[in-house]
């Protein structure tokens, strides 16, 4: 059953133009950045910025709009003998698959052509994980908010918080407690923001020289090791599964 829902959602999204436009935008950005910079490594830095900004934004906004737009369809399906759990999970997987594919084509193609490096691979993995995370967060926000306008507001606020405000707060905390050894605490705080987690995950490949010079070398010892990478991926997985579970629970109890 779930596969049929996913198939339906996928074909519905692919028939619309937004997913195509998203792919084309990423393609244009990718090829543009690689060609304009003249330097592959410089291009990768710019692409990382795009991925960290655009992917969460698109995932949040698109998934929220999709949820409200297919609200009637969801209502119709919930009248059928389908478990609500299956219904919402199918919706989530459909949206995530569509956006993930768009991202994979849009960013993967330029990276495959210009930068077949570990950094490129890390950026791809980070972008895919961010897509999954923020579609899950968007579903949680949308399920818990009945009004469409308010749901959009919630999505945009969430994006603003994770993309910008959180780093400001982090910088503030680090500066307030600068007399204390803050390296470990800073790494702990990074886990509270999936965008920052994805960023440090790529950073360890990209700015290896700077991180090696970090006093205390906490980043190298912890995040650079195999255990550190497993930790980063594990926390990102938690960032997918926890909002998704909460959304499923809220949806199950929801008075549609």
């Amino acid at each position, binding site marked *: 059953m779930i596969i049929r829902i996913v198939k339906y959602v996928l074909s519905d999204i692919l028939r619309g133009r937004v997913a195509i436009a998203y792919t084309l935008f990423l393609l244009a950005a990718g090829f543009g950045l690689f060609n304009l910079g003249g*330097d592959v490594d410089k291009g990768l830095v710019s692409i990382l910025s795009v991925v960290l900004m655009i992917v969460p934004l698109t995932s949040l906004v698109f998934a929220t709009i999709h949820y409200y737009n297919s609200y009637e369809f969801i209502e119709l399906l919930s009248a059928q003998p389908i478990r609500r759990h299956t219904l919402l999970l199918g919706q989530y997987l459909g949206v995530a698959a569509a956006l993930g594919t768009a991202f994979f084509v849009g960013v993967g193609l330029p990276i495959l052509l210009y930068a077949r490096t570990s950094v490129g691979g890390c950026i791809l993995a980070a972008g895919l994980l961010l897509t999954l995370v923020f579609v899950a967060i968007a579903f949680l926000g949308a399920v818990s908010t009945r009004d469409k306008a308010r749901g959009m507001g919630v999505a945009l606020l969430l994006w603003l918080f994770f993309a910008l405000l959180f*780093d400001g707060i982090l910088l503030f905390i680090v500066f307030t407690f600068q007399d204390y050894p803050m390296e470990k605490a800073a790494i702990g705080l990074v886990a509270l923001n999936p965008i920052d987690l994805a960023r440090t995950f790529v*950073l360890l490949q*990209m700015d290896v020289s*700077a*991180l090696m*010079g970090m006093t205390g070398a906490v980043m190298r010892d912890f995040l650079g090791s195999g255990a550190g990478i497993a930790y980063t991926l594990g926390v990102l997985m938690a960032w997918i599964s926890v909002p998704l579970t909460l959304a499923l629970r809220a949806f199950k109890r929801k008075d549609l």
Partner: protein
Amino acid sequence: MTRNRRLRFLSLLGCCASVLGAASAAEPLQSLIDAEAPGSTLRLAATVYTIDEAVNLNKPLSIEGSNGTIIDGQWRDTLMLIGPDASGSTVRGIMFRNGGRSSTREWAGIRIDGASRVTIEDNQFMDCNYGIYLAKAADCVLQGNTVTGKPGIEQNSGNGIHLWSSQRVAIRGNDVSGHRDGIYLEFSGNTLVEENAVHENTRYGLHFMSANDCRYVENRFTANGAGVAVMYSTNVEMTGNLFEKSWGGSAYGLLLKDIRDSHITDNTFHANSTGVYAQGVTRTRFERNLLRENGWALRLLSDGTENEILDNDFIRNSFDFAVNGQLISHRIAGNYWDRYEGYDLRRDGDGDVPYRPVSLYGMLTERVPASLVLLHSFMVQLIDRAERAFPSITPESVVDESPAMKPRRPVAGGPASRLP
């Protein structure tokens, strides 16, 4: 024809000598040396000479090892001592191993004490506290040697090649690793260090202490605590070297401390935590270097004056330039900064808008290193841009008035992780 015959005769003699050497392996090396007339050639057999105390060379001799000649010191003492009476000697093709280790005495593979015109060539030094130690020597040539130490505690281990108060020494084509300093020059002037490969030494690859008028050219310094440290010296010429992979909290490609009137030209700094760290540097010219993929490319403390930073390429460094205050009478011009976003309407190859290489985020990281976790964050880019538009915190004296639009050297290679 006669010449040919003489050559054959000589080689026959050589054969006899080596056969004799092999037969008398039990005979101590010292008595072999004592038996030779000054100025002659002593050819050692392909065998292990175990010694109990330092072999003393007290007359000019040419000592040649065969393939497989080993002098084993049994971890007791210096292996070979070349005194002032042995000026003009040559030591070639011998493996010196297992030298004495002491924290109070400087035992070495070869110690040249007060001699001049000594050539040490194509030898191997394995696990000697100091490899080659020169004190009060002059006009020596150290060439093609391999000096391999056992990396131990920094305080107890010695240097690969150590010069103290020696003049006009040429150190060329050696491979030095696993020591405290790879090559150490103290109070030694007019020395040339050329085409050496110096790697994995615990402290510095090449270390100058009050060594004036020296040159080091075309060397490769890989993964040392710091590639090169130049301290309290004047008129040092550094050209065409490669400094790479000095990684750590206080690791530098090139560490400059209190030096004057020096030239740093055409070097490559690649993937170091800090490319160049300059403290108390005066009247020094830093020109046409490539700084690529370093954590901090150039860290210049403001106690220096009248330095020139010209025509360098700064590419893909996490931070290009760090200072701890205003710079006084420096000249920064014509560098290529890959973060520069200006334009060149005059079409003269230089950007029309000045560039400020010190970023606000760079300064924040200087003060609180933990904020390094925010590298490449959108927030950080935002505050950097705001600061660039309206500079208020970054020092206004650090500015490149004519930044280059294109790098001088072709951009090749990739991320540090992929390099051999």
